[in-house]
């Protein structure tokens, strides 16, 4: 994970530092959506507009951060046999808190995210970070991991949301981009568009990765 690289400059320095590496892994190298392909339900369902994608990404990142902090600080205390139940309990708590917080922020937003807020509980990304990272690492590292993964997840959701909203609705964050003559690709805001967009992004990411591997 932490071997020195021979790349010059800023990124090389970053990759040599263990903390920055933890953060960057989630953001880029192990991006939860484009590399690990985790948490596909919100990725496909709630990315029909950029705003929904951003809100969903931030909500997930918040739950991820809080659950990582708690799981990491309680890791000596939780017996191995009941760890999954404990993690789910902790995650569910923060999802409920997020649900109330979003309702308090905006009724409209809560309306458009609908059932998907509660479904963050079963987002495998959060459970996988609790199990694979937070339960084995100190709080500081777990916070960095959660931030990296959370930002990476939000970034990926935004990638999908922006493309789908521009093509399917002719707007970005609700601002119209094109004149009225623009014919919207309605399929892009429907579930099928989610699959198309995700496939194209995955393709791009894999091409990039292959290019890097060969050079």
């Amino acid at each position, binding site marked *: 994970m932490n071997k020195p690289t021979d790349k010059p400059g800023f990124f090389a320095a970053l990759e040599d530092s263990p903390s920055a590496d933890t953060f960057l892994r989630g953001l880029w190298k192990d991006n939860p959506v484009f590399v690990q392909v985790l948490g596909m339900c919100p990725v496909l369902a709630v990315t029909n507009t950029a705003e929904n994608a951003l809100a969903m990404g931030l909500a997930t990142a918040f739950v991820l951060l809080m659950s990582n902090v708690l799981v990491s600080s309680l890791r000596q205390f939780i017996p191995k046999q009941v760890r999954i139940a*404990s993690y789910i309990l902790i995650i569910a708590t923060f999802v409920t808190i997020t649900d109330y917080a979003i309702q308090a922020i905006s009724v409209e937003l809560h309306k458009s995210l609908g059932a998907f807020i509660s479904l963050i509980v079963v987002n495998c990304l959060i459970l996988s970070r609790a199990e694979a990272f937070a339960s084995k690492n100190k709080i500081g590292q777990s916070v960095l991991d959660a931030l990296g993964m959370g930002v990476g997840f939000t970034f990926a959701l935004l990638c999908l949301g922006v493309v789908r909203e521009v093509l399917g609705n002719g707007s970005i964050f609700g601002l119209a981009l094109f004149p009225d003559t623009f014919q919207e690709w309605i399929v892009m805001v429907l579930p099928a568009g989610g699959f198309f967009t995700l496939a194209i992004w995955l393709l791009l990411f894999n091409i990039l990765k292959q290019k890097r591997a060969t050079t």
Partner: protein
Amino acid sequence: MTIAPEKKDATGNSNKMLFAMVGIGLMCALLIVLTYEGTKPIIAKNKAAALEQAIFKVLPGTATTAGYVWTGEAFAPLDDTGADGKRIYAGFSESGELTGFALPATGQGYAGDIRVLYGYDPAQEALVGFYVLESKETPGLGDKIEKDAAFLANFEALSVALNADGSALKEEVQYAKSGEKENPWEIDGITGATISSRAVTEALSASTAEWVPKIYQTKDQFQPQSQSHE
């Protein structure tokens, strides 16, 4: 391989497991209760504000609103007792004149219930506004009921005039295919959103047939008040 030591271990472990689970459970419960109590007034305020905004949209010229609940024989002011029954909201202009009534209605759409709010003006005997409170209709198709300008134009003056003795509507609200609207009580549907626009029509038709006569008969009892809806 002996089992005895493992058994001892298991009792010690199960106590530890119990403590861990109960401890985490209590902590989580506390967190949730704190958040719930902290956000409750804000959420209630937001919902009331959203409803009030919707009432302003369906009743042009409204400055204040008041909620009423149907008690079986008459409309009583909506108070905090939380009486069950059909709720309606009266709107008043700045000078205190009645601008009309906002009524919620529900129809079965393509993807679950569609909840709408419509404005009824007894002076014009017509529906004067329409707003979708909640819908899960397909984006780009069914959700045209919220955006389609031609469809929304139906609700600028949709006739719900009463018959001679005021007991029922002269003509119930009816659905017409897109572009085939001939009478003022017909709703011009949307091509590509037939199910959704039909659902809206049915919701409005049932709701107006039941409530418009009741409201019209008692319209004089509604006066501006200081109390507002929940």
